[in-house]
């Protein structure tokens, strides 16, 4: 046995140079698809805008200045704090947060339900969760629109049942956007939580019950702390893409109010095209998300020291 371990260590030493080559593809992918694009974005955000799209290779802080300071419609009033973009960012964060909360409220019981079925039927339930996601996101968002429009099936049903007298205005509202985001990203919440609950040892719950814990205490003081990493992973996976979404705001929200995603899109596809400002908005968003994740990781690093 000891010889076996010795051999294994020897093997890993032999393969030390090899290891570098084996991880090289992942570094290449990260470098090529993540680092280089982010660096290009960072660079562009500090360049001078060219009228109707493109950049002039001169250093400029104009993009960040535009984000922070309001100089009136004509750009020559005294500078005051610019609320426009802050409002757009706050709106996006609120929409994404509500969508995440909805996903959590529905996703957690769903994941719990699936994880407590017999092992055979779990795969069927998981399969059912993923079925809608075989269809393109655009199509799914459009069909949501058909469901909740003024004379769509939801309103028709409620009218027929006599629950309401006039159709509920759901389309082109914030609620529609939240609903669309919720529907788009629900499996991202269900799957990580399922993975965590599946590994949960239910004898812990029994032990807690033996110690006179009631059901709520077991849920909040035993189950939730144990599966928390899954919940956090699910929340991040839903919140981050929701923050940058522009399909749901466009199709369900009526494109009346910019979200971060549509604001950025407008800088590249809009009339005058302001690429540095688009890049700056993307950088600010990226910094915010990264910052939040780092703070979270700091506060909740594995409690090995305790």
């Amino acid at each position, binding site marked *: 046995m000891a010889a076996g371990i010795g051999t294994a260590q020897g093997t890993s030493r032999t393969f030390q140079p090899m290891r570098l080559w084996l991880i090289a593809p992942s570094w290449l992918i990260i470098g090529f698809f993540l680092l280089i694009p982010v660096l290009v974005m960072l660079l562009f955000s500090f360049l001078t805008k060219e009228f109707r799209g493109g950049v002039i290779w001169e250093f400029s802080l104009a993009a960040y200045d535009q984000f922070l300071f309001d100089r009136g419609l004509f750009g020559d009033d005294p500078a005051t704090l610019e609320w426009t973009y802050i409002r757009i960012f706050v709106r996006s964060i609120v929409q994404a947060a509500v969508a995440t909360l909805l996903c959590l409220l529905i996703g957690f019981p769903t994941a719990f339900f699936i994880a407590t079925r017999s092992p055979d039927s779990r795969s069927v339930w998981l399969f059912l969760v993923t079925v809608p996601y075989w269809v393109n996101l655009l199509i799914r968002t459009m069909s949501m629109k058909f469901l909740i429009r*003024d004379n769509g099936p939801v309103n028709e049903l409620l009218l027929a049942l006599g629950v309401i007298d006039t159709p509920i205005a759901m389309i082109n509202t914030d609620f529609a956007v939240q609903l669309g985001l919720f529907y788009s990203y629900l499996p991202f919440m269900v799957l990580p939580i399922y993975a965590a609950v599946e590994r949960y040892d239910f004898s812990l719950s029994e032990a807690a019950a033996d110690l006179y814990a009631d059901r709520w205490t077991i849920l909040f003081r035993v189950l939730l702390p144990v599966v928390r990493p899954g919940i956090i992973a699910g929340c991040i996976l839903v919140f981050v893409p929701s923050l940058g979404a522009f399909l749901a705001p466009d199709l369900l929200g009526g494109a009346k109010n910019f979200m971060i995603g549509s604001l950025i899109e407008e800088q590249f596809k809009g*009339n005058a*095209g302001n690429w540095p400002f688009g890049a700056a908005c993307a950088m600010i968003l990226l910094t915010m998300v990264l910052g939040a994740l780092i703070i979270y990781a700091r506060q909740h690093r594995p409690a090995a020291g305790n």
Partner: protein
Amino acid sequence: MLKFLRIEPLAIVAMVVSGTASAEGKLSIYHWFEYIPQELLDKFAAEAGVEVTMDTFDSNEAMLATLKAGKLGSYDVAVPGDYMVEIMRNEGMLDSVAEGELANKGNIEAQWLDVPFDPGRMHSIPYQWGSTSFSVNRDAYSGDIRTTDIIFNPPEELRGRINMLDSQGEVMLLASMHLGIPQCTDDREQLRALDELLQAGKLHWASFNSDGAKDVLVSGDAAVGMIWNGFSAKARAEGANIEYSYPREGLIVWMDNVVLLKDAPNRANAIKFMDFLLRPENAAAVTNFAQYSAGVMGVSGLLDARLSSQPESVPPADAPAGTFVQVCDQATQEVYDAIWTRLKK
């Protein structure tokens, strides 16, 4: 069995590749979505013996951004709207068509031969033209609709039921017509008035949607929709009880054009394609499909009967003359952009 299934698609690919390999060359088109019948592309491919590929865009600005981001040199022809031809010309993104290169240039209708956005038609040929206005659901409102008040100061029953095109140029022009101010004005009072008009108007608007402009009218989501004339005709054909308005304050006209792009990889085929589209039967095929108007002579006898009589194609005698969206200078365009962003903040 599995093996057979795996091999078969490969065999088909091989056949297709060998089939197209014998073609003379290629033509790469960058076009609007849903704007050319597939049969017409097939017809050109067969006639010229070339392989035709097409990518589509959904706004002039999206096309400009794509070309600027490095796609210039990979397409042969594109189909920009009037003002975008001027912008692309100013940016040096267009190649010139020499005199005599287009055998069918004489087919272009006289009024579209010398246009302000491309004097002398050096880079472009007409594709289709039409107008932009708005349509009103006659079940929802029976009053006078030939006024832009319907959009900016709507009667009670239409409030909150209006869809706008998500198109800065056309919305700004309609608003300028409503106020009776020139386009691209640099007068600060007028620009402020424009800003206030849009802010006030937004309270009555349900959504901004261009590609769904027809569907919201057909489904009844919107009772008023800013829309292009051919799209409105299609909405009516699909059952919407709508009427296309010719507002007294002014009528927006536009023309899409086929342009020869700079550094076109297949320039000779691009010229062939432009010549092909100038033949009346082909221009008529596009018009029958898109329901706008061709800028080519000899088309009228080849059109579907309803096209020559439908109200979306035939303005009333007292309709105002059409106005093109103008290209603003940088200073004014930046104010326009600021107004647009404030509108959507």
